[in-house]
């Protein structure tokens, strides 16, 4: 009987572990290029993200056509000439995170996220600090980092070289609900 309780507890634990999955379909990703010539910003509010606290895994997926620019022409050029979204429609990240998340229910916790970014047909190892926080059952994750277009085989013609920053600032902001 004792064995039965023990095993059953284990089984229930496994099921509960599944409930530690937080997801969203309306996450935010923005990228910003600042040069003396021109400031460019593009924002995507339809980012899919999932965070599994028990397995300490995290994943993002977003459509590049979901990035909205102030100038539609710029948006068209971004899709047609830079990221070639007809061939590579999505940007994704999948990885793991480390950090002390035991107190995540009470305060914002700094974690280190490590994994692979896939963009424009290039897969790149990537690592960045981030924060996560759980408040009223909602997980909020935030991160800022920089990416270099050339790392992803995105070439910038010399004519517009001065208008596009060498390093692009990226902002991630997700608000996830537990998966039911």
């Amino acid at each position, binding site marked *: 009987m004792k064995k039965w309780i023990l095993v059953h507890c284990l089984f229930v634990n496994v099921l509960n572990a599944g409930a530690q999955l937080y997801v969203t379909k309306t996450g935010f990703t923005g990228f910003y290029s600042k040069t003396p010539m021109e400031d460019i910003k593009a924002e995507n509010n339809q980012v899919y993200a999932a965070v599994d606290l028990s397995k300490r895994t995290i994943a993002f997926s977003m459509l590049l056509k979901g990035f909205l620019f102030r100038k539609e022409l710029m948006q068209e050029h971004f899709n*047609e000439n830079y990221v070639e979204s007809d061939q590579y429609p999505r940007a994704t990240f999948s990885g793991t995170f480390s950090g002390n998340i035991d107190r995540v229910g009470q305060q914002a916790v700094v974690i280190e996220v490590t994994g692979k970014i896939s963009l424009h047909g290039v897969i790149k190892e990537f690592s960045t600090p981030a924060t996560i926080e759980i408040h009223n059952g909602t997980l909020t994750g935030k991160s800022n980092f920089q990416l270099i277009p050339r790392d992803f085989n995105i070439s910038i013609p010399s004519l517009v070289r001065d208008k596009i920053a060498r390093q692009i600032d990226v902002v991630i902001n997700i608000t996830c609900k537990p998966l039911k």
Partner: protein
Amino acid sequence: MKNRSVHIINIIPPQKKSLLLTCTAVLCVSVSLRAQDTDLLKRLNDSMMATAKTVYVSGTFKGTRIINTQSVEMPAKQELLFSIMHRFGKINDGAYQFFGLDNATMRMGFEYGITDYITAGIGRSTFQKTFDGFLKVRLLRQTASGGHIPFSLTALGGLNHNTIKYTNKPYMNARYRTDYVTQLLIARKLTRNLSLQLSPTWLHYNLVPEHRDHNDVFVLAAGGRMKITRRSSINVDFCYIPPNQTPSVKVYHSLSAGFDIETGGHVFQVHVTNSQGMTEPLFMGRTTGSWGKGDIYFGFNIYRSFKLGKK
């Protein structure tokens, strides 16, 4: 799930219960351990596929004109396009006229996106001091995914009004100076590099040279572009005018070939054509130049985009 497992436990003899549960638990643990981060990504992508929205094809052409014929491309809402179009003289004018470069006609124009689906345009050509205006309405957009529309369809209506002063034609009133164009622009981006457009056109001239000339002229235009790099393409524009519509004047089919290059907010188009006019009633129905005789005009179009209003 939990309830069912309890239910199964109650109907199985006790000695087998623990074995079964151990097996179940081990199975669950092993499944959860095997689940890697990539599975999480796969689940996200599957969920994204399941709720995919309609994605429209973009960049069928680089400019709002293939060369002379208007393309299905339109400025976005609150986007203003300023265009300068130039046609030099005929190449066969010879060295004295510097192969046509001494003589140029031009058209200056604005196109404005009232919405993403409606464009209003105005222009002024030096040829016969002509004003033109047009309205373009997007009816269908070719879909890339999440839809079944195989082509883009845009309707165009426009008019030409010339204001040149004639001392010998006192009858030239406003009505006689005006011509109309009605067009359907049907385009398909076949591959990421190749786009084709078919444009059935109805031209109406209020004044024709002779009684036997038709006031209503029908033209079928076909054009296309082939991208050669990410930012440049080769374009061809051909307007087939069925015979016997303007018997008093020898009119030719308008044929143009050119090269597009885009840089940031500019599109440059350079081309050679046998038409000097830059509005539909002129180049579609009144092309008098012949490629065979060397009546070839060198020309260019430049577009600059301005974004008005905030977003």
